[in-house]
């Protein structure tokens, strides 16, 4: 028998359950979905590393930068499109800048091979989606890092990256490496990998391997937050474009055209 002003045990439990959900779940939902509150976008550091690719100097048919990078970082070459691993590579301009009208904006042709690599975005979408924080943006210099120890191979980051800068090790990486560099680890099957802006050497003031190996001087690496840096001077004096700027990821790789 149930009286009007009484709540039985079952109803009480139901009510308190709903109340608990609202009480704890509400603020959490706001925290997760509220805009502008992601760690990924945070940046007050003095250093933000970036790169300028001078497409006018980059020589057609030359892949010195990619060879040097892939050699130094033990990037495997499996000779198969399906298993391909890429840190830095060339792609026809129309694949990188899809929204241009190549008949009118004719600084470069649609089929001109352009260099591309991880953009080390100021607001990286890969970092937002990583469930284990295996990829994150380093606060002191803006490099988007990978921790291969922690990567579980879910490939969310690959889906999130609008630039295709990430590759997954479907095949055993060591089988695809002709010459091992003992100073840098390989990866294992089942992890995602990408360019690390030569994080292991730039701390000592050296340029990344791709920049060092470019004989044309087409690549410039430097601090985007320093107005007197060489890269900032280049960007000031030359017209430049970024890949998919409208997405708001704010790439740190600029193309001088």
């Amino acid at each position, binding site marked *: 028998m149930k009286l009007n002003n009484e709540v039985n045990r079952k109803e009480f439990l139901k009510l308190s359950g709903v109340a608990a959900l609202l009480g704890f779940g509400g603020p959490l939902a706001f925290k997760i979905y509220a805009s502008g509150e992601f760690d990924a976008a945070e940046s007050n550091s003095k250093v933000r590393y970036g790169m300028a690719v001078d497409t006018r100097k980059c020589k057609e048919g030359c892949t010195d930068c990619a060879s*040097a990078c892939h*050699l*130094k970082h*033990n990037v495997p070459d499996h000779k198969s499109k399906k298993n391909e691993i890429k840190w830095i590579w060339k792609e026809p301009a129309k694949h990188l800048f899809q929204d241009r009208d190549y008949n009118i904006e004719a600084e470069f042709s649609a089929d001109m091979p352009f260099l591309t690599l991880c953009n080390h975005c100021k607001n990286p979408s890969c970092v937002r989606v990583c469930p284990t924080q295996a990829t*994150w943006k*380093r606060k*002191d210099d803006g490099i988007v*890092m990978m*921790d*291969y*120890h922690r990567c579980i191979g879910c490939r969310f980051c690959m889906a999130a990256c609008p630039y295709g800068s990430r590759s997954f090790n479907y095949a055993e990486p060591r089988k695809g490496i002709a*010459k*091992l*560099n*003992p*100073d*840098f*680890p*390989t*990866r*294992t099957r089942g992890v995602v990998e990408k360019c690390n802006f030569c*994080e292991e050497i730039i*701390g000592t003031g050296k340029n990344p*391997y791709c920049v*060092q*190996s470019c004989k044309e001087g087409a690549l410039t690496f430097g601090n985007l937050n320093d107005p007197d840096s060489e890269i900032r001077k280049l960007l000031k004096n030359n017209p430049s474009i970024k890949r998919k700027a409208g997405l708001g990821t704010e790439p740190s790789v600029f193309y001088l055209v």
Partner: protein
Amino acid sequence: MFKMYSKIKVFTGVFIFLALATFPFWNKVFIVSKTNYEMPDANIKPALAFARENGFSGCIEDRAFMRAKHMKLLNHWRNEVVRENKKTYINSKGEHFNKSLTGTCLKCHSNKEEFCDSCHTSAGVKPYCFDCHITGIQNTNQLNSKAEAIHEIK
């Protein structure tokens, strides 16, 4: 009163069941350990040439500490180097070392089979460090040709 039938059959069954269920334990204790276990040689000395060349007095920490805690230390190093960009280790004597498994530890403990595998194997642990990190021994031929190829880029 309680009366039990077929005592012999029942107890035989129970005995066989217990013997099978506990097989892994007594197998390990009485058979495997007696026949296969070999105490790893605790007196293998590392080649200290690398340490001396770089002006270090010896290993980064003393023997007892390294034996007991090297796995914890390496785990710390891994997190600090990769995630916090702290790449220098200052030991209890105030010496500065580069935090690197292959670049520091294995430079003296250059024989992985002796210094790593012998204990890991008998202790039954399988660390996955060397799935990625490259030891000098396993790829000697590849390393030599490598050294020439990358010489021009420094």
